[in-house]
């Protein structure tokens, strides 16, 4: 029987909200239809590009002929070449060829670390994963951590020692450096010398710095990171005392109000916050509620139950109003007086109800403030948190810990000291690039030019490194010994996985060398005892732990952390009487003549340090879906005011002191009007081959340390255009009920109160799925998805061989998935997925197996929208959306492993077939590249290798087959590849495999262990996919559907469970758990929240 489904017309006028991914989709422009209706976009199939002239099809045939005849003539084709097996001379401890070795380690970040387990194959690290044993983190990582491994193999990383730009070999450099810098430094006791270090929690670094200052009392230490938060630092100082930090513990919070704090994304606060927050987002009793006030969408704002768009500079006003509501009027009186009439511009009902809700959960509610906010907001929030009873020793949602680190002076102070002549030699070890990213007020370029000696140690050969007198290649954190404390103080040891690839030094190594006498060795001649950093770390460790040091050291290396090393929790000090709000100027709301520019950390390059990391460059931004560039993000109203009609039109932003930067404009919904958001870190001149020419440098707008909010800027179109590479509407699924949400109230109604007799009424049968006839199976076999009682234990029967023990399945919880991209990058690292470059992204050829869809939703009803709130695009006459009530959802989509997979039936060569354990598998060596499967995949989950992405650099893609295939540097990147996954060549399709290499390894392990018994079932929970491991909020659950104890089985029976496009009968193995929002019914606009997909089809 031939079945043909007519998909219903998308976006029929029912349901209360529309779901869309880009303005083009919302307005149904011809460009969008073009993307939609082609399996691959126009041009994607043709060999065309910048060098199209030399690579037409005709030329291609010519080259092919030439290479064929060469192959015939050459002798190489006749005999197969010898390959060699080269075993070690002596056995290396624990090393078994073919088996991975796992080490615990940690990736140091500015105020803590990400505890890790690192996978190594024959001595080369290939993958990092969160350490699930860590008491505070409990697994998961983030996108930067996942991608950091690529930096280790970056072919453009600093590889040579340099003196005044001249390359010296290691030994000679050591000799000259000793003579030219170290000896005079020691002799002068550090006079006229200073260090510029990055933020770090390493106890060894702290100790070595202290020893250095002791031995050379004249030396000064400064600290610099461009993305610091002077406001928070100072507020903590004033409120709680020196050396004390406030740490959110979000699993203890019932109500969270974020004031411009992207705490789930780029402004992490506390540790393991995503996981802790996710733990409280289980629908039902005790579900936490999140209020977010922010200028533009962040991943946190997308998760909000109530969100207000508000310019960053106005957040302080909201904080004041909130404090007023909470009975703190007296404390904030000086600011209240200044508010005047402005208060009406911030919805008073919103503030009032939010305050009431926070207060109703006294002791269980907390206010978080963004790092870029000024001191006053941090102070007010501190007062509010105290009034809310958030701080109560170890039990409250905000925990005060005494880290005891002394605040160091910053780069401005150092520059002043250089200008005054007090400092002539500077050793720079900060991981950023001061010459590029220092705030204008420091005038660092001018200051550093005056230095006699600028010693730079770093992994990248960036602007500062190029200007340095002495440049030392740094060691990556996977190459060096170190130690680090997490934000709450738990000590982890940073272990080297590999010898420094280019003989680089770690920061600790350099510090140890600067000391007059080497620090005392712990008396053992272990491997690496000649490594100064190792010796120093061991010595510090011995001083930090009690009892048996050897045992503690062994445990710390094994577990990845050292027990009982957390910072002490302290009680809050009395609130200081005078906080001093008097001098704080309130800024007016931004308008067309006084644009506000917010400089944010980049989701791609952070502060600029990942500029040469191709994985991060290519992963679409969680919100804008831009790749390879930054842009000036603005609302439609702002765009109208500036005359921006298309994304990519260049605008010139004039900031403080008359500085002008040019950035392409990009329009996004849900953004505060007349606020422009731009990512920092792009547009570097000394970036390396990947980062060269990407994005635009907006650091010149940063006039002072921490001044990320630039008010009163001007912006205008320059007339130029720039090609951006957003992926928002690539691989669209045409607005069908793909992403589903509902409210906590509805959930309780159906589930908790037992009114929902049919669980399918919750989310399973939304959209078309409510109308489908019973499935007429084309194949036989039980329904693993919702196995009924008799099917559950029964042997599997079918026409095909079926694995009785293992049937794999996955659920993805949209309630906790924030869309941070960690899974996408983890997948890229695990599965050897190539990057394709900006040009190919524009062509729609990105290769990520996990596509992170981002949907905006906006109310459909037109009444109730005031004229100002509705944006009507010129000439189209249809209201686009309401910027105030627009919501965001994210949904990762990879191959869903249909049991009745449409791709399999169309493959002419059986290259994609079903496996006995329920995978839709790809045999790459069979694939001939017809792309029929991709055409027939309703989920658009298949990716095609248009070029030899793994063999060639992006710029060489279009060269003919005779061109040298391997560019310089590709060899270095090869070292990262997972040896258990085929590296795909040009002309084959690929897609998510459920990490089949891990599944096979687990099954093989079980069988090898079973030997002569029948017990070959993989133990519950012993196999995880890379995306699941990487997810910081445990949104992804993978497991064996034949295993009753497996968590995935339970989740498949959750009322929120639904399949994508169930009505076409593919029976996908990956299902989704619908988003449940938890609106406060008293809030304005609550009736709209989370109502989106109900009844819609």
């Amino acid at each position, binding site marked *: 029987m031939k079945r043909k489904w007519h998909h219903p017309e998308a976006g029929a006028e029912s349901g209360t909200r529309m779901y869309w991914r880009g303005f083009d989709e919302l307005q149904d422009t011809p460009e969008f239809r073009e993307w939609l209706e082609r399996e691959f976009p126009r041009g994607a199939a043709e060999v065309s590009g910048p060098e199209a002239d030399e690579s037409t099809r005709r030329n291609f045939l010519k080259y092919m002929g030439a290479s064929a005849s060469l192959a015939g003539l050459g002798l190489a084709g006749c005999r*197969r070449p*010898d*390959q*060699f*097996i*080269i*075993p*070690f*001379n*002596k*056995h290396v401890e624990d090393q*078994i*060829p*073919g*088996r991975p070795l796992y080490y615990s380690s940690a990736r140091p970040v500015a105020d803590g670390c990400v505890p890790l387990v690192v996978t190594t194959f024959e001595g080369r690290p290939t993958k990092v994963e969160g350490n699930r044993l860590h008491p505070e983190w409990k697994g998961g990582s983030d996108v930067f951590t996942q991608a950091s491994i690529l930096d280790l193999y970056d072919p453009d990383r600093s590889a040579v020692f340099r003196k005044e730009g001249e390359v010296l070999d290691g030994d000679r450099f050591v000799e000259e450096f000793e003579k030219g810098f170290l000896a005079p430094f020691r002799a002068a006791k550090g006079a006229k010398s200073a260090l510029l270090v990055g933020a770090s929690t390493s106890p060894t670094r702290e100790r070595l710095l202290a020893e250095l200052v002791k031995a050379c009392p004249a030396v000064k230490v400064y600290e610099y990171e461009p993305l610091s938060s002077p406001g928070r630092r100072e507020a903590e100082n004033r409120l709680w005392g020196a050396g004390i930090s406030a740490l959110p513990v979000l699993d203890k919070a019932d109500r969270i109000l974020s004031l411009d704090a992207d705490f789930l994304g780029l402004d992490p606060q506390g540790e393991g916050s995503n996981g802790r927050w996710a733990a409280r987002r289980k629908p039902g009793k005790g579900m936490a509620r999140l209020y977010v006030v922010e200028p533009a969408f962040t991943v946190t704002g997308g998760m909000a139950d109530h969100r207000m768009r508000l310019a960053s500079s106005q957040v302080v006003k909201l904080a004041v109003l909130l404090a007023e509501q909470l009975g703190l009027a007296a404390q904030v009186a000086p600011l209240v007086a200044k508010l005047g009439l402005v208060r009406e511009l911030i919805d008073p009902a919103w503030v009032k109800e939010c305050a009431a809700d926070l207060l109703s959960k006294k002791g269980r509610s907390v206010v978080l403030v963004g790092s870029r906010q000024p001191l006053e907001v941090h102070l007010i929030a501190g007062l509010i948190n105290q009034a809310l009873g958030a701080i109560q020793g170890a039990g409250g949602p905000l925990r005060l810990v005494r880290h005891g680190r002394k605040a160091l002076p910053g780069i401005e102070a150092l520059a002043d000291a250089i200008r005054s002549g007090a400092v002539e030699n500077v050793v720079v070890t900060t991981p950023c690039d001061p010459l590029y990213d220092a705030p204008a007020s420091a005038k660092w370029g001018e200051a550093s030019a005056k230095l006699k000696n600028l010693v730079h140690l770093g992994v990248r050969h960036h602007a500062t490194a190029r200007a340095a007198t002495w440049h030392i290649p740094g060691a990556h954190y996977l190459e060096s010994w170190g130690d680090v404390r997490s934000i709450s103080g738990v000590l982890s040891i940073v272990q080297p996985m590999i010898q420094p690839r280019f003989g680089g030094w770690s920061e600790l190594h350099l510090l140890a060398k600067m000391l007059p006498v080497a620090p005392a060795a712990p008396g053992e001649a272990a491997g690496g005892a000649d490594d100064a950093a190792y010796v120093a770390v061991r010595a510090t460790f011995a001083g930090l732990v009690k009892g048996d040091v050897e045992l503690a050291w062994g445990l710390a290396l094994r577990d990845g952390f050292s027990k009982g090393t957390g910072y002490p929790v302290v009680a809050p000090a009395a609130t200081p009487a005078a906080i001093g709000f008097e001098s704080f100027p309130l800024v007016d709301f931004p308008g067309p003549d006084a644009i506000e520019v917010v400089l944010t950390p980049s989701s791609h390059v952070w502060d600029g340090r990942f500029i040469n990391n191709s994985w991060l460059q290519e992963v679409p931004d969680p919100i804008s879906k831009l790749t390879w560039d930054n842009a000036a993000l603005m609302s439609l109203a702002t765009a109208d005011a500036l005359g921006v009609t298309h994304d990519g039109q260049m605008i010139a932003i004039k900031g403080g002191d008359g500085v002008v930067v040019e950035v392409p404009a990009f329009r996004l919904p849900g953004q505060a009007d007349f606020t422009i958001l731009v990512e920092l870190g792009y547009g570097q001149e000394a970036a390396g081959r990947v980062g060269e020419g990407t994005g635009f440098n907006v650091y010149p707008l940063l006039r002072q340390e921490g001044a990320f909010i630039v008010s009163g800027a001007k912006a205008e179109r320059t007339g130029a255009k720039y090609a951006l590479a957003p992926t928002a509407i690539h691989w669209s699924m045409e607005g069908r009920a793909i992403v589903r949400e509902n409210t906590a109230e509805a959930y309780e109604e159906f589930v908790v109160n037992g009114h929902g007799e049919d669980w399918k009424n919750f989310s399973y049968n939304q959209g078309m799925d409510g109308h489908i006839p019973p499935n007429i199976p084309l194949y036989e076999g039980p329904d693993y998805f919702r196995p009924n009682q008799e099917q559950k234990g029964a042997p599997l029967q079918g026409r095909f*061989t079926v*694995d009785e023990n293992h049937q794999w399945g996955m659920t993805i919880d949209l309630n906790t998935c924030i869309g941070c991209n960690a899974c996408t990058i983890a997948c890229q690292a695990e599965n050897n997925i190539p990057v394709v470059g900006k040009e190919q992204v524009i062509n729609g050829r990105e290769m990520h197996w996990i596509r992170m869809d981002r949907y905006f939703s906006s109310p459909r009803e037109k009444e109730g929208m005031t004229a100002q709130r509705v944006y009507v695009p010129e000439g189209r006459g249809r209201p686009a959306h309401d910027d105030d009530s627009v919501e965001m959802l994210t949904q990762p989509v990879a191959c869903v492993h249909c049991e009745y997979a449409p791709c399999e039936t169309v493959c002419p060569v059986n290259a994609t*077939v*079903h*496996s*006995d*354990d329920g*995978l839709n*598998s*790809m*045999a*790459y*060596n*069979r694939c001939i590249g017809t792309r029929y499967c991709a055409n027939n995949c309703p989920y658009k989950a298949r990716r095609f290798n248009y070029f030899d992405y793994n063999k060639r650099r992006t710029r060489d893609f279009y060269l003919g087959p005779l061109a040298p295939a391997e560019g310089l540097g590709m060899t270095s990147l090869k070292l990262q590849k997972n040896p*258990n*996954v*085929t*590296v795909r060549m040009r002309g084959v399709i690929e897609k998510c*495999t459920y990490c*089949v*290499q891990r599944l*096979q390894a687990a099954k*093989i392990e079980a*069988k*090898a*262990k*079973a*030997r*002569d*018994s*029948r017990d*070959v079932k993989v133990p519950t929970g012993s196999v995880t996919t890379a995306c699941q491991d990487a997810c910081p909020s445990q949104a992804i659950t993978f497991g064996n559907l034949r295993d009753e104890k497996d968590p995935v089985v339970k989740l498949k029976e959750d009322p929120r469970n639904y399949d994508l496009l169930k009505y076409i009968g593919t029976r996908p193995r990956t299902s989704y758990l619908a988003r449940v929002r938890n609106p406060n019914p008293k809030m304005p606009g609550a009736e709209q929240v989370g109502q989106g997909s109900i009844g819609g089809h």
Partner: protein
Amino acid sequence: MGNFFPRWTNLVPLKILFAAFLVATGLAAAVATYWTKGYSAVGYQPDQPIPFDHSLHAGQLGMDCRYCHSHVERSSHANVPNAQTCWNCHSQIKTNSEKLVPLRAAMDESFAGYTGKPIEWVKIHKLGDYAYFNHSVHVNRGVSCVSCHGKINEMKVVWQDKSQTMGWCLDCHRNPATALRPLDQVTNLDWKAEETDRSSFYAALAHQTGLKVEDLEKRAQQRGFETTGALTQKEIGSQLKEAWGVHPPESCSACHR
């Protein structure tokens, strides 16, 4: 009525003949290349840097395979031994042999030609990069070395004995009974099913499975085996397959990832 066929058709038969000739030649060449044992590399017997004699070590001296290939039970790779493994004995035995110069160059610091460089053995069994074979799961589940590598213990210089093509793999994956043997005989390359003692085989199997010997024999009879006389590989294999629950995967994803 003009000419029914246009002029250009005159040459068509010739063209067809020529094309057919090309196709036939191509086919013949393809068959000659691909349908030979040579193509699957059976018999590939390269010279090794040290002419290591398996027939002496594994055959005459009776060394177990796992003395040198020590990780075969734990890893996907059956490792080629480190030079240290050879040196364990050869620092004492045959120290002056010409044949052992590469070993001494790698290990013997007192040797004039000492380089410290590891020995480069020539790989004999080559699998496509897209195929992932795992030794441990085979040897732990009763597949002997001999099934894939032949009688290594009789080879002076090792050659590739089996075609190791995908079809050859699948032959066994579809009929594992042809290869299974008791676990303690996996590295005994001379083991013969026919020489196995029937009663002790069944007694051991009964002990391991907890079943009675009669039941096991009944099981064999149901499958058409005579439960008297010499054992056969098929009988042993099918009994073990049943007892151990051996279901070799036949899906693509088992070997291609």
